[in-house]
């Protein structure tokens, strides 16, 4: 177990390093330079030159890369070109927002997706299953940002049930009591988390339906029925427990999906998270921010799949004892 963990952590570090390297190379290969995004207003070449040398951009690329890795190893993520503040500060501000959004979306995705999938499997090929099957297929096919815009239009603009953007109500938030602030945050969270969660839940439901159907055809389900167990106990006890196993692996895959989805959703809902930070940094060619964001995202994905493996081991006795 310890050896396994050490190997996994070593692999995780290697993957994050690869992500950093690829991002670094791609960024410098891409057209455009920092400090000159639009090039509409002429900038004094002397000023530009000074900025470039100040950030070390006039050095050969391998030297820049080596220096960057050295700084990262020391825990220094560098200074943002555009935000005029340390990258670490900007990330630290954005990360909790993204984690809140991703966490809420994950809850919606798994709870709703599981419930729908199990319901569909138990009612397989009947009307309810067919209707939900088509609905989830539609939701699954829809681009996340389009879904976000749709919800924004309907619930934010027309019905005015939810705010159209932001994390809190900037005017009233500070004056609210403790419970009110929580409610305010949840109220703002509803649409973006709903968007991400709904699209994710559609995929999860389809996956879980298939997993459940496969399990329901197994011999041990017949055994459970032959024992005289109520159907609810057969489905929710004997079948679901087995159908959750592949699902745990899905958890590892859901995480990257949520992070990429977050980039679009955060942009649509003006949610000051990692995704929006990274997206804006890309347009400004803000190299240190982009690389650090990619590194953090890569780290979280690796961590997510590591967590999934640990959960899998906890859920499946055949893996737990290591002799399956």
């Amino acid at each position, binding site marked *: 177990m310890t050896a396994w963990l050490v190997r996994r952590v070593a692999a995780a570090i290697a993957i994050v390093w690869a992500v950093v390297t690829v991002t670094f190379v791609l960024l410098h290969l891409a057209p455009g330079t920092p400090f000159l995004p639009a090039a509409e207003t002429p900038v004094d070449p002397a000023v530009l030159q000074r900025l470039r040398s100040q950030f070390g951009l006039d050095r050969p690329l391998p030297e820049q890369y080596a220096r960057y890795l050295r700084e990262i190893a020391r825990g220094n993520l560098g200074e943002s070109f555009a935000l005029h503040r340390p990258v670490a500060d900007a990330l630290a501000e954005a990360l909790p927002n993204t984690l809140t959004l991703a966490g809420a979306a994950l809850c919606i995705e798994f709870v709703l997706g599981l419930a729908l999938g199990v319901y569909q499997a138990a009612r397989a090929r009947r009307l309810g299953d067919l209707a939900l099957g088509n609905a989830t297929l539609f939701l699954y096919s829809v681009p996340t940002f389009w879904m976000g815009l749709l919800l924004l239009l309907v619930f934010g603009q027309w019905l005015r049930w939810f705010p159209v953007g932001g994390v809190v109500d900037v005017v009233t938030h500070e004056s609210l009591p403790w419970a009110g602030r929580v409610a305010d945050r949840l109220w703002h969270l509803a649409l973006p988390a709903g968007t991400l969660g709904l699209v994710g839940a559609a995929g999860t439901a389809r996956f879980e339906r298939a997993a459940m159907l496969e399990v329901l055809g197994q011999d*041990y389900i017949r*055994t459970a029925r032959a*024992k*005289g167990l*109520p159907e609810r106990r057969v489905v929710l006890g004997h079948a679901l427990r087995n159908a959750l196993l592949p699902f745990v692996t899905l958890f590892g895959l859901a995480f990257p999906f949520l992070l990429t989805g977050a980039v679009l959703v955060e942009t649509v809902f003006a949610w000051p998270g990692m995704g929006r930070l990274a997206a804006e940094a890309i347009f400004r060619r803000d190299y240190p921010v982009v690389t650090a964001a990619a590194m953090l995202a890569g780290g979280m994905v690796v961590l997510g799949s590591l967590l999934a493996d640990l959960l899998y081991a906890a859920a*499946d006795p*055949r893996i737990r004892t290591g002799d399956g």
Partner: protein
Amino acid sequence: MTEPLLRVRDLKTYFVTERGGGTARAVDGVSFDVYPGETLGIVGESGCGKTVTSLSILRLIPEPPGHILSGSLIEFEGRNLLTLRPPELRAIRGNEVAMIFQEPMTSLNPVFTVGDQIAEAAIVHQRLPRKQARARAIEMLRLVGIPDPEERVDHYPHQLSGGMSQRVMIAMALVCHPKLLIADEPTTALDVTIQAQILELLDRLQAELGMAVLLITHDLGIVAGTSDRVVVMYAGQVVETAATPELFAHPLHPYTEGLMAAVPRIDTRVSQVRGRLHTIPGQVPAASGWPAGCRFHPRCPYAWDRCTAEEPPLLDAGRGEPGSHAVRCWLLTEPRRRTPQA
């Protein structure tokens, strides 16, 4: 005469085949009785409908595609299981009628301990508290001859061998002391030595607990050693039924004859079988298109024109008590035709 524990009359279980249209008549008018405490063996080749028959009794046939036709009767202690509402049926499943299956390894749920799986039926049917149910599970494991039951109770199925798994299945089935145990090919997936142990165990438990056993198998040897009476099935129908000694001494249906000839005998000299084992030519036809007339006629060495035209009913062989030995064959009406053609 005692009342039968289980009466099956004219059981018809059909399946709608893939791509619609066709109907597979897997079980097509099967009748038999099981008396308290006896062992009834149902024998036949793969595809003859014996497993579907056994699953139909507790209504474990997946519906759709399967369905049991109205007009069928499955009566357990006077109650028709086919008309029971789901809660009433559940009160019988695993409690009064229990079942064990062919593949013990896949019939146990991999994510629960064997103790939990054995205790479950006792918790559901007898409302035993968890702790007592666990004690019962240990007691059952000891009863079926599993060493170190206190330790094994917390093991998962993947930690058991095939023979151990089948013992666990038996423990699970018997935890509520059922009056009838349906054993569907209980030893087919096991090694021969383990087979013998499991059959011995079933025999001992039957004597101790006084239950009836419906034993489904393709192996005449198993039937000979364990069953009081035998039902031979072919193509979804009963073709012959008799007490075990009678059947082995006087097999009357050509199919039964063929089955017996196909069993290697340790006391037969190789010269007598000319180094080759007898086989019944051909295969069991598909259930979606049974042959017209007698369903066995394409494979029968004695078949004549009547067999292709007219389906024989179950005829009394006139041996012993009326109805004790019945055969679905026209040969009974024209015994002189029983001369080998080939």
